[in-house]
Protein backbone atom coordinates (compact mmCIF):
# COMPACT_ATOMS: atom_id res chain seq x y z
CA UNK A 1 0.00 0.00 0.00
CA UNK A 2 1.32 3.41 -0.98
CA UNK A 3 0.21 5.53 1.93
CA UNK A 4 1.53 8.83 0.57
CA UNK A 5 -0.30 8.63 -2.77
CA UNK A 6 -1.53 12.09 -3.77
CA UNK A 7 0.71 13.86 -1.25
CA UNK A 8 3.41 16.38 -2.17
CA UNK A 9 6.66 16.60 -0.20
CA UNK A 10 9.59 19.04 -0.19
CA UNK A 11 12.86 17.68 1.20
CA UNK A 12 15.82 20.00 1.76
CA UNK A 13 19.33 18.61 1.49
CA UNK A 14 17.88 15.82 -0.61
CA UNK A 15 20.81 14.92 -2.84
CA UNK A 16 22.63 12.74 -0.35
CA UNK A 17 22.53 10.98 2.99
CA UNK A 18 19.40 11.12 5.12
CA UNK A 19 17.63 13.58 2.79
CA UNK A 20 18.10 11.33 -0.21
CA UNK A 21 16.93 8.26 1.71
CA UNK A 22 13.79 10.16 2.79
CA UNK A 23 13.10 11.32 -0.79
CA UNK A 24 13.53 7.76 -2.07
CA UNK A 25 11.19 6.39 0.58
CA UNK A 26 8.49 9.01 -0.03
CA UNK A 27 8.61 8.34 -3.77
CA UNK A 28 8.28 4.61 -3.09
CA UNK A 29 5.18 5.35 -0.97
CA UNK A 30 3.54 7.24 -3.80
CA UNK A 31 4.31 10.89 -3.01
CA UNK A 32 5.37 13.54 -5.48
CA UNK A 33 8.71 14.68 -4.06
CA UNK A 34 10.49 17.95 -4.70
CA UNK A 35 14.15 17.47 -3.89
CA UNK A 36 15.99 20.62 -2.87
CA UNK A 37 19.73 21.11 -2.53
CA UNK A 38 22.62 23.42 -3.39
CA UNK A 39 23.53 21.96 -6.79
CA UNK A 40 22.42 23.71 -9.96
CA UNK A 41 19.45 22.27 -11.81
CA UNK A 42 20.81 20.13 -14.61
CA UNK A 43 23.96 19.17 -12.70
CA UNK A 44 24.98 15.61 -13.41
CA UNK A 45 24.21 14.23 -9.92
CA UNK A 46 20.84 15.99 -9.96
CA UNK A 47 19.96 14.45 -13.31
CA UNK A 48 21.17 11.01 -12.25
CA UNK A 49 19.11 11.13 -9.06
CA UNK A 50 15.97 12.29 -10.86
CA UNK A 51 16.40 9.63 -13.53
CA UNK A 52 16.64 6.98 -10.83
CA UNK A 53 13.64 8.26 -8.83
CA UNK A 54 11.36 8.60 -11.84
CA UNK A 55 8.59 10.96 -12.80
CA UNK A 56 7.25 11.72 -9.35
CA UNK A 57 10.54 13.40 -8.37
CA UNK A 58 11.61 16.91 -9.33
CA UNK A 59 14.38 19.25 -8.27
CA UNK A 60 14.71 22.83 -7.13
CA UNK A 61 17.93 24.60 -6.22
CA UNK A 62 17.72 25.86 -2.64
CA UNK A 63 20.16 27.49 -0.25
CA UNK A 64 18.17 27.08 2.97
CA UNK A 65 19.93 30.04 4.61
CA UNK A 66 18.45 32.48 2.05
CA UNK A 67 14.88 33.67 2.51
CA UNK A 68 14.55 34.61 -1.17
CA UNK A 69 15.62 31.11 -2.19
CA UNK A 70 12.90 29.61 0.00
CA UNK A 71 10.31 31.93 -1.53
CA UNK A 72 11.35 30.81 -5.01
CA UNK A 73 11.24 27.14 -4.02
CA UNK A 74 7.79 27.58 -2.49
CA UNK A 75 6.55 29.26 -5.67
CA UNK A 76 7.88 26.36 -7.70
CA UNK A 77 5.98 23.87 -5.54
CA UNK A 78 2.85 26.02 -5.75
CA UNK A 79 3.12 26.30 -9.54
CA UNK A 80 3.96 22.65 -10.19
CA UNK A 81 1.72 20.95 -7.64
CA UNK A 82 -0.62 23.53 -6.10
CA UNK A 83 -0.18 21.95 -2.70
CA UNK A 84 2.39 20.88 -0.10
CA UNK A 85 1.62 18.17 2.46
CA UNK A 86 5.03 17.36 3.87
CA UNK A 87 8.07 19.58 4.53
CA UNK A 88 11.29 17.92 5.63
CA UNK A 89 13.81 20.42 6.98
CA UNK A 90 16.80 18.18 6.60
CA UNK A 91 19.61 20.29 5.14
CA UNK A 92 22.44 20.73 7.58
CA UNK A 93 26.17 21.00 7.98
CA UNK A 94 28.55 19.98 10.72
CA UNK A 95 31.02 22.03 12.68
CA UNK A 96 33.60 20.81 15.16
CA UNK A 97 36.26 22.51 17.19
CA UNK A 98 37.10 23.60 20.71
CA UNK A 99 34.94 26.49 21.85
CA UNK A 100 37.89 28.77 22.66
CA UNK A 101 39.28 28.55 19.12
CA UNK A 102 36.06 28.23 17.12
CA UNK A 103 35.87 31.05 14.58
CA UNK A 104 32.81 33.25 15.02
CA UNK A 105 32.26 32.98 11.26
CA UNK A 106 32.05 29.19 11.60
CA UNK A 107 29.48 29.57 14.41
CA UNK A 108 27.44 32.02 12.30
CA UNK A 109 27.58 29.73 9.27
CA UNK A 110 26.21 26.67 11.07
CA UNK A 111 23.47 28.74 12.70
CA UNK A 112 22.47 30.22 9.34
CA UNK A 113 22.09 26.79 7.75
CA UNK A 114 21.01 24.51 10.60
CA UNK A 115 18.77 26.98 12.45
CA UNK A 116 17.85 29.85 10.10
CA UNK A 117 17.18 27.23 7.43
CA UNK A 118 14.58 25.46 9.57
CA UNK A 119 12.94 28.75 10.55
CA UNK A 120 12.84 30.06 6.99
CA UNK A 121 11.51 26.80 5.57
CA UNK A 122 8.78 26.65 8.19
CA UNK A 123 7.89 30.31 7.81
CA UNK A 124 7.83 30.30 4.02
CA UNK A 125 5.93 27.05 3.57
CA UNK A 126 3.38 27.41 6.38
CA UNK A 127 0.64 29.14 4.30
CA UNK A 128 0.72 26.44 1.62
CA UNK A 129 1.05 23.62 4.17
CA UNK A 130 -1.91 25.02 6.12
CA UNK A 131 -4.03 25.31 2.99
CA UNK A 132 -3.14 21.77 1.89
CA UNK A 133 -3.72 20.47 5.39
CA UNK A 134 -7.43 21.03 4.96
CA UNK A 135 -7.46 18.55 2.08
CA UNK A 136 -6.38 15.54 4.15
CA UNK A 137 -7.97 13.98 7.23
CA UNK A 138 -5.08 14.72 9.59
CA UNK A 139 -3.38 17.75 8.06
CA UNK A 140 0.12 18.46 6.83
CA UNK A 141 3.38 17.46 8.47
CA UNK A 142 6.64 19.31 9.10
CA UNK A 143 9.54 17.03 9.95
CA UNK A 144 12.65 18.70 11.35
CA UNK A 145 15.84 16.68 11.37
CA UNK A 146 17.57 17.45 14.66
CA UNK A 147 20.08 15.02 16.14
CA UNK A 148 21.02 13.24 19.34
CA UNK A 149 23.36 16.25 19.50
CA UNK A 150 20.18 18.26 20.07
CA UNK A 151 19.55 16.23 23.22
CA UNK A 152 22.95 15.72 24.84
CA UNK A 153 26.23 17.60 24.77
CA UNK A 154 29.41 16.36 23.14
CA UNK A 155 32.97 17.65 23.33
CA UNK A 156 34.22 19.95 20.56
CA UNK A 157 30.74 20.12 19.06
CA UNK A 158 29.25 23.13 20.84
CA UNK A 159 27.99 24.94 17.74
CA UNK A 160 26.36 21.83 16.29
CA UNK A 161 24.85 21.02 19.72
CA UNK A 162 23.46 24.53 20.08
CA UNK A 163 21.95 24.52 16.60
CA UNK A 164 20.34 21.09 16.88
CA UNK A 165 19.03 21.94 20.36
CA UNK A 166 17.43 25.02 18.85
CA UNK A 167 15.71 22.88 16.23
CA UNK A 168 14.31 20.64 18.96
CA UNK A 169 12.62 23.48 20.84
CA UNK A 170 11.64 25.44 17.73
CA UNK A 171 9.74 22.30 16.73
CA UNK A 172 7.84 22.14 20.01
CA UNK A 173 7.02 25.85 20.02
CA UNK A 174 5.63 25.78 16.51
CA UNK A 175 3.72 22.55 17.23
CA UNK A 176 1.92 24.26 20.10
CA UNK A 177 1.40 27.46 18.10
CA UNK A 178 -0.24 25.58 15.25
CA UNK A 179 -2.30 23.33 17.53
CA UNK A 180 -3.69 26.32 19.42
CA UNK A 181 -4.59 28.17 16.26
CA UNK A 182 -6.11 25.05 14.68
CA UNK A 183 -3.59 25.34 11.86
CA UNK A 184 -3.68 21.83 10.36
CA UNK A 185 0.05 21.17 10.44
CA UNK A 186 1.76 18.71 12.78
CA UNK A 187 5.39 19.47 13.65
CA UNK A 188 7.84 16.90 15.01
CA UNK A 189 11.59 16.35 15.19
CA UNK A 190 13.74 13.32 14.46
CA UNK A 191 16.95 12.77 16.41
CA UNK A 192 19.26 10.39 14.56
CA UNK A 193 22.33 8.98 16.20
CA UNK A 194 25.40 8.33 14.07
CA UNK A 195 24.30 7.49 10.54
CA UNK A 196 26.42 6.30 7.63
CA UNK A 197 26.21 9.43 5.46
CA UNK A 198 28.57 11.49 3.32
CA UNK A 199 28.37 14.25 5.97
CA UNK A 200 29.66 11.84 8.61
CA UNK A 201 32.48 10.70 6.33
CA UNK A 202 33.49 14.32 5.68
CA UNK A 203 33.44 14.98 9.42
CA UNK A 204 35.56 11.89 10.04
CA UNK A 205 38.14 13.05 7.50
CA UNK A 206 38.34 16.41 9.27
CA UNK A 207 38.97 14.68 12.61
CA UNK A 208 41.66 12.56 11.01
CA UNK A 209 43.23 15.73 9.55
CA UNK A 210 43.17 17.23 13.04
CA UNK A 211 45.16 14.24 14.23
CA UNK A 212 42.38 12.79 16.39
CA UNK A 213 42.66 9.34 14.80
CA UNK A 214 44.80 7.40 12.37
CA UNK A 215 42.05 7.00 9.79
CA UNK A 216 38.29 7.33 9.37
CA UNK A 217 37.65 3.60 9.84
CA UNK A 218 39.15 3.76 13.33
CA UNK A 219 36.68 6.53 14.18
CA UNK A 220 33.73 4.65 12.67
CA UNK A 221 34.68 1.46 14.52
CA UNK A 222 34.95 3.52 17.70
CA UNK A 223 31.47 4.97 17.21
CA UNK A 224 30.01 1.54 16.49
CA UNK A 225 31.64 0.16 19.63
CA UNK A 226 30.27 3.09 21.67
CA UNK A 227 26.73 2.62 20.33
CA UNK A 228 24.74 0.19 22.49
CA UNK A 229 23.38 -1.56 19.38
CA UNK A 230 26.95 -1.95 18.15
CA UNK A 231 26.61 -0.31 14.77
CA UNK A 232 25.87 2.91 12.92
CA UNK A 233 22.42 3.57 11.46
CA UNK A 234 21.69 3.33 7.77
CA UNK A 235 19.99 6.38 6.27
CA UNK A 236 17.00 4.19 5.34
CA UNK A 237 16.36 3.63 9.05
CA UNK A 238 15.93 7.38 9.55
CA UNK A 239 13.69 7.47 6.48
CA UNK A 240 11.43 4.92 8.19
CA UNK A 241 10.81 7.34 11.05
CA UNK A 242 10.28 10.22 8.61
CA UNK A 243 7.75 8.13 6.72
CA UNK A 244 5.83 7.43 9.94
CA UNK A 245 5.68 11.17 10.66
CA UNK A 246 4.67 11.95 7.07
CA UNK A 247 1.84 9.41 7.05
CA UNK A 248 -1.56 9.57 8.71
CA UNK A 249 -0.33 6.92 11.16
CA UNK A 250 1.18 9.75 13.21
CA UNK A 251 -2.02 11.81 13.28
CA UNK A 252 -1.85 12.48 17.05
CA UNK A 253 1.89 13.14 17.13
CA UNK A 254 2.86 16.79 17.29
CA UNK A 255 5.63 18.42 19.30
CA UNK A 256 7.21 14.98 19.71
CA UNK A 257 10.84 14.01 19.31
CA UNK A 258 11.56 10.68 17.65
CA UNK A 259 14.96 9.43 18.71
CA UNK A 260 16.58 6.90 16.34
CA UNK A 261 19.97 6.26 17.91
CA UNK A 262 20.51 2.58 18.65
CA UNK A 263 20.34 3.34 22.36
CA UNK A 264 23.02 6.09 22.37
CA UNK A 265 21.08 8.47 24.63
CA UNK A 266 19.42 5.73 26.70
CA UNK A 267 22.49 5.43 28.90
Amino acid sequence: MRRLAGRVALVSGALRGIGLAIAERFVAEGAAVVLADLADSGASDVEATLARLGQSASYVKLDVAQEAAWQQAEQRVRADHGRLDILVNNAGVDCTGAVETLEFAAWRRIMSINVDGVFLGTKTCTPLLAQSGKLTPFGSSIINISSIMGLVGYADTSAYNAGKGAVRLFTKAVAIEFAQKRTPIRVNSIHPGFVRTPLLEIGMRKWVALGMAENAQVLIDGIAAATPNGRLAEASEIAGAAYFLASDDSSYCTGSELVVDGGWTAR
Partner: protein
Amino acid sequence: MASRLDGKVALVTGGTSGIGAGAVRRLAAEGAQVAFTGSNAEAAARLMAETGASFHAHRVEDAPGWPALMTTLVGRYGRLDIAFANAGIEAGDGSVESITIDGWNRLLAVNLTGVMLTAQAAVRAMRVNPGGATGAIIINSSMSAYRPMGNFVAYSTTKGALIALSKSVAMHCANQGLKIRCNSIHPGVVETDMIRGVINRAPDPAAARAQFEGMAPLKRMAKVEEVAALVAFLASDEASFISGSEYSIDGASTAGMMGV
Protein backbone atom coordinates in the same frame (compact mmCIF):
# COMPACT_ATOMS: atom_id res chain seq x y z
CA MET B 1 -3.04 -2.87 5.12
CA ALA B 2 0.58 -3.38 4.18
CA SER B 3 1.95 -6.55 5.70
CA ARG B 4 4.91 -5.11 7.55
CA LEU B 5 4.52 -7.72 10.28
CA ASP B 6 4.08 -10.84 8.17
CA GLY B 7 5.57 -13.87 9.90
CA LYS B 8 5.95 -12.09 13.24
CA VAL B 9 4.39 -13.27 16.49
CA ALA B 10 3.12 -10.70 18.96
CA LEU B 11 2.05 -10.72 22.60
CA VAL B 12 -0.18 -7.93 23.91
CA THR B 13 -0.84 -7.78 27.64
CA GLY B 14 -4.13 -6.27 28.76
CA GLY B 15 -5.42 -6.83 25.24
CA THR B 16 -9.14 -7.14 25.87
CA SER B 17 -9.97 -3.43 25.81
CA GLY B 18 -8.72 0.07 25.10
CA ILE B 19 -5.24 0.61 23.66
CA GLY B 20 -4.44 -3.09 24.08
CA ALA B 21 -7.40 -4.19 21.96
CA GLY B 22 -6.53 -1.52 19.39
CA ALA B 23 -3.00 -2.91 19.21
CA VAL B 24 -4.30 -6.47 18.80
CA ARG B 25 -6.40 -5.32 15.84
CA ARG B 26 -3.62 -3.29 14.22
CA LEU B 27 -0.84 -5.87 14.66
CA ALA B 28 -3.12 -8.58 13.26
CA ALA B 29 -4.12 -6.35 10.35
CA GLU B 30 -0.45 -5.88 9.48
CA GLY B 31 0.07 -9.62 9.28
CA ALA B 32 1.27 -10.63 12.76
CA GLN B 33 -0.01 -13.66 14.63
CA VAL B 34 -1.22 -12.14 17.87
CA ALA B 35 -1.75 -13.55 21.35
CA PHE B 36 -3.23 -11.36 24.05
CA THR B 37 -3.82 -11.60 27.76
CA GLY B 38 -6.28 -10.18 30.25
CA SER B 39 -9.17 -11.33 32.37
CA ASN B 40 -12.37 -10.27 30.56
CA ALA B 41 -13.21 -13.52 28.75
CA GLU B 42 -16.36 -12.12 27.14
CA ALA B 43 -14.55 -9.19 25.48
CA ALA B 44 -11.70 -11.54 24.59
CA ALA B 45 -14.03 -13.90 22.75
CA ARG B 46 -15.34 -11.08 20.58
CA LEU B 47 -11.81 -9.86 19.76
CA MET B 48 -10.66 -13.40 18.94
CA ALA B 49 -13.57 -13.85 16.54
CA GLU B 50 -12.84 -10.51 14.92
CA THR B 51 -9.06 -10.77 14.54
CA GLY B 52 -8.10 -14.44 14.72
CA ALA B 53 -5.85 -13.64 17.68
CA SER B 54 -5.62 -16.07 20.60
CA PHE B 55 -6.57 -15.19 24.17
CA HIS B 56 -4.77 -16.42 27.25
CA ALA B 57 -6.35 -15.59 30.61
CA HIS B 58 -3.47 -14.23 32.65
CA ARG B 59 -2.76 -11.23 34.82
CA VAL B 60 0.65 -9.61 34.31
CA GLU B 61 1.39 -9.48 38.04
CA ASP B 62 0.97 -13.25 38.34
CA ALA B 63 4.69 -14.11 38.37
CA PRO B 64 4.23 -17.90 38.82
CA GLY B 65 1.87 -17.92 35.81
CA TRP B 66 4.37 -16.45 33.32
CA PRO B 67 6.42 -19.59 32.53
CA ALA B 68 3.28 -21.60 31.69
CA LEU B 69 1.94 -18.77 29.56
CA MET B 70 5.17 -18.53 27.58
CA THR B 71 5.37 -22.31 27.17
CA THR B 72 1.87 -22.24 25.71
CA LEU B 73 2.66 -19.30 23.40
CA VAL B 74 5.97 -20.54 22.08
CA GLY B 75 4.52 -24.03 21.78
CA ARG B 76 1.73 -22.71 19.63
CA TYR B 77 3.59 -20.12 17.53
CA GLY B 78 7.21 -21.28 17.69
CA ARG B 79 8.65 -17.83 18.50
CA LEU B 80 8.03 -14.33 19.86
CA ASP B 81 8.91 -11.16 17.93
CA ILE B 82 6.82 -8.43 19.52
CA ALA B 83 5.77 -7.81 23.11
CA PHE B 84 3.50 -4.88 23.89
CA ALA B 85 3.58 -4.44 27.69
CA ASN B 86 0.32 -2.59 27.89
CA ALA B 87 -1.58 -3.83 30.93
CA GLY B 88 -2.06 -1.16 33.55
CA ILE B 89 -4.58 0.01 36.13
CA GLU B 90 -5.46 3.16 38.02
CA ALA B 91 -8.21 1.93 40.34
CA GLY B 92 -7.31 2.30 44.00
CA ASP B 93 -5.00 5.24 43.40
CA GLY B 94 -5.13 8.49 45.32
CA SER B 95 -3.01 11.39 46.48
CA VAL B 96 0.05 10.91 48.62
CA GLU B 97 -2.16 11.72 51.64
CA SER B 98 -5.09 9.48 50.79
CA ILE B 99 -3.68 6.35 49.12
CA THR B 100 -3.76 3.13 51.14
CA ILE B 101 -0.81 0.79 51.30
CA ASP B 102 -2.94 -1.88 49.64
CA GLY B 103 -3.81 0.45 46.79
CA TRP B 104 -0.17 1.46 46.37
CA ASN B 105 1.06 -2.15 46.39
CA ARG B 106 -1.57 -3.25 43.92
CA LEU B 107 -0.73 -0.46 41.42
CA LEU B 108 2.99 -1.15 41.69
CA ALA B 109 2.38 -4.87 41.21
CA VAL B 110 0.43 -4.41 37.98
CA ASN B 111 1.91 -1.26 36.44
CA LEU B 112 5.56 -1.80 37.31
CA THR B 113 6.27 -5.38 38.38
CA GLY B 114 3.86 -6.66 35.71
CA VAL B 115 5.74 -4.77 33.01
CA MET B 116 9.09 -6.02 34.28
CA LEU B 117 7.75 -9.60 34.20
CA THR B 118 6.46 -9.03 30.66
CA ALA B 119 9.86 -7.74 29.50
CA GLN B 120 11.61 -10.56 31.31
CA ALA B 121 9.46 -13.23 29.70
CA ALA B 122 9.80 -11.53 26.32
CA VAL B 123 13.61 -11.28 26.39
CA ARG B 124 13.88 -14.90 27.55
CA ALA B 125 11.68 -16.04 24.65
CA MET B 126 13.18 -13.72 22.01
CA ARG B 127 16.71 -14.73 23.00
CA VAL B 128 16.07 -18.25 21.70
CA ASN B 129 14.06 -17.35 18.59
CA PRO B 130 14.80 -19.69 15.67
CA GLY B 131 17.28 -17.87 13.43
CA GLY B 132 18.69 -15.68 16.18
CA ALA B 133 17.81 -13.38 19.04
CA THR B 134 15.56 -10.66 17.62
CA GLY B 135 12.51 -8.81 18.81
CA ALA B 136 10.82 -5.57 19.76
CA ILE B 137 9.41 -4.71 23.17
CA ILE B 138 7.10 -1.72 23.51
CA ILE B 139 6.21 -0.46 26.97
CA ASN B 140 3.06 1.58 27.42
CA SER B 141 3.96 4.37 29.81
CA SER B 142 2.03 7.67 29.77
CA MET B 143 2.53 11.40 29.56
CA SER B 144 2.02 11.17 33.34
CA ALA B 145 5.66 10.07 33.43
CA TYR B 146 6.53 13.69 32.58
CA ARG B 147 3.52 15.45 34.10
CA PRO B 148 2.58 13.51 37.23
CA MET B 149 -0.94 13.98 38.62
CA GLY B 150 -1.43 14.91 42.26
CA ASN B 151 -4.44 12.66 42.71
CA PHE B 152 -2.79 9.64 41.03
CA VAL B 153 0.45 9.25 42.97
CA ALA B 154 0.97 5.54 42.32
CA TYR B 155 -0.03 5.64 38.65
CA SER B 156 2.29 8.60 37.98
CA THR B 157 5.16 7.01 39.90
CA THR B 158 4.89 3.71 38.06
CA LYS B 159 4.67 5.40 34.65
CA GLY B 160 7.78 7.42 35.45
CA ALA B 161 9.64 4.31 36.55
CA LEU B 162 8.80 2.62 33.24
CA ILE B 163 11.15 5.04 31.45
CA ALA B 164 14.13 3.72 33.37
CA LEU B 165 12.88 0.13 33.13
CA SER B 166 12.59 0.43 29.34
CA LYS B 167 16.07 1.91 28.97
CA SER B 168 17.59 -0.70 31.28
CA VAL B 169 16.04 -3.50 29.21
CA ALA B 170 17.29 -1.84 26.00
CA MET B 171 20.81 -1.47 27.40
CA HIS B 172 20.90 -5.04 28.68
CA CYS B 173 19.86 -6.46 25.31
CA ALA B 174 22.36 -4.24 23.47
CA ASN B 175 25.15 -5.11 25.91
CA GLN B 176 24.42 -8.79 25.38
CA GLY B 177 24.58 -8.35 21.60
CA LEU B 178 20.92 -9.35 21.24
CA LYS B 179 18.95 -7.69 18.45
CA ILE B 180 16.10 -7.04 20.82
CA ARG B 181 14.92 -3.43 21.00
CA CYS B 182 12.92 -1.88 23.83
CA ASN B 183 11.14 1.49 23.77
CA SER B 184 8.46 3.27 25.77
CA ILE B 185 5.47 5.17 24.43
CA HIS B 186 3.82 8.06 26.25
CA PRO B 187 0.23 8.66 25.19
CA GLY B 188 -1.76 11.68 26.26
CA VAL B 189 -5.46 11.28 27.01
CA VAL B 190 -6.84 8.52 24.77
CA GLU B 191 -10.54 8.12 24.07
CA THR B 192 -10.92 4.57 25.36
CA ASP B 193 -14.17 2.96 26.52
CA MET B 194 -12.96 3.61 30.05
CA ILE B 195 -12.62 7.36 29.43
CA ARG B 196 -15.95 7.38 27.57
CA GLY B 197 -17.50 5.79 30.64
CA VAL B 198 -16.03 8.47 32.89
CA ILE B 199 -17.42 11.15 30.56
CA ASN B 200 -20.86 9.58 30.32
CA ARG B 201 -21.15 9.16 34.09
CA ALA B 202 -20.17 12.77 34.80
CA PRO B 203 -22.91 15.16 35.99
CA ASP B 204 -22.34 17.22 32.83
CA PRO B 205 -20.98 14.86 30.13
CA ALA B 206 -20.46 17.66 27.61
CA ALA B 207 -18.38 19.64 30.09
CA ALA B 208 -16.42 16.53 31.05
CA ARG B 209 -15.69 15.79 27.38
CA ALA B 210 -14.59 19.39 26.79
CA GLN B 211 -12.27 19.15 29.76
CA PHE B 212 -10.59 15.99 28.46
CA GLU B 213 -10.33 17.40 24.94
CA GLY B 214 -8.86 20.64 26.25
CA MET B 215 -5.94 18.86 27.89
CA ALA B 216 -3.99 18.70 24.62
CA PRO B 217 -3.04 21.70 22.48
CA LEU B 218 -4.50 19.70 19.57
CA LYS B 219 -7.83 20.07 21.44
CA ARG B 220 -8.93 16.49 21.13
CA MET B 221 -8.19 13.13 22.66
CA ALA B 222 -6.10 10.55 20.85
CA LYS B 223 -7.93 7.70 19.20
CA VAL B 224 -6.97 4.17 20.18
CA GLU B 225 -6.09 3.52 16.52
CA GLU B 226 -3.52 6.34 16.55
CA VAL B 227 -1.66 4.83 19.50
CA ALA B 228 -1.87 1.40 17.88
CA ALA B 229 -0.25 2.84 14.74
CA LEU B 230 2.75 3.98 16.80
CA VAL B 231 2.98 0.55 18.43
CA ALA B 232 2.97 -1.08 14.98
CA PHE B 233 5.72 1.25 13.77
CA LEU B 234 7.97 0.51 16.76
CA ALA B 235 7.21 -3.21 16.41
CA SER B 236 8.17 -3.26 12.73
CA ASP B 237 11.59 -3.48 11.11
CA GLU B 238 11.11 0.18 10.13
CA ALA B 239 12.24 0.97 13.67
CA SER B 240 15.35 -1.24 13.49
CA PHE B 241 17.70 1.44 14.92
CA ILE B 242 15.29 2.69 17.58
CA SER B 243 15.98 1.37 21.07
CA GLY B 244 15.98 2.86 24.55
CA SER B 245 13.85 5.77 23.31
CA GLU B 246 10.74 7.49 24.66
CA TYR B 247 8.07 8.25 22.08
CA SER B 248 5.41 10.81 22.98
CA ILE B 249 2.00 10.68 21.31
CA ASP B 250 0.10 13.41 23.05
CA GLY B 251 -1.04 16.13 20.65
CA ALA B 252 1.74 18.41 21.95
CA SER B 253 0.55 18.07 25.59
CA THR B 254 4.11 17.81 26.93
CA ALA B 255 5.81 19.96 24.28
CA GLY B 256 5.57 23.06 26.41
CA MET B 257 3.29 25.69 27.84
CA MET B 258 0.07 26.70 26.16
CA GLY B 259 0.94 30.38 26.32
CA VAL B 260 -1.53 33.20 26.72
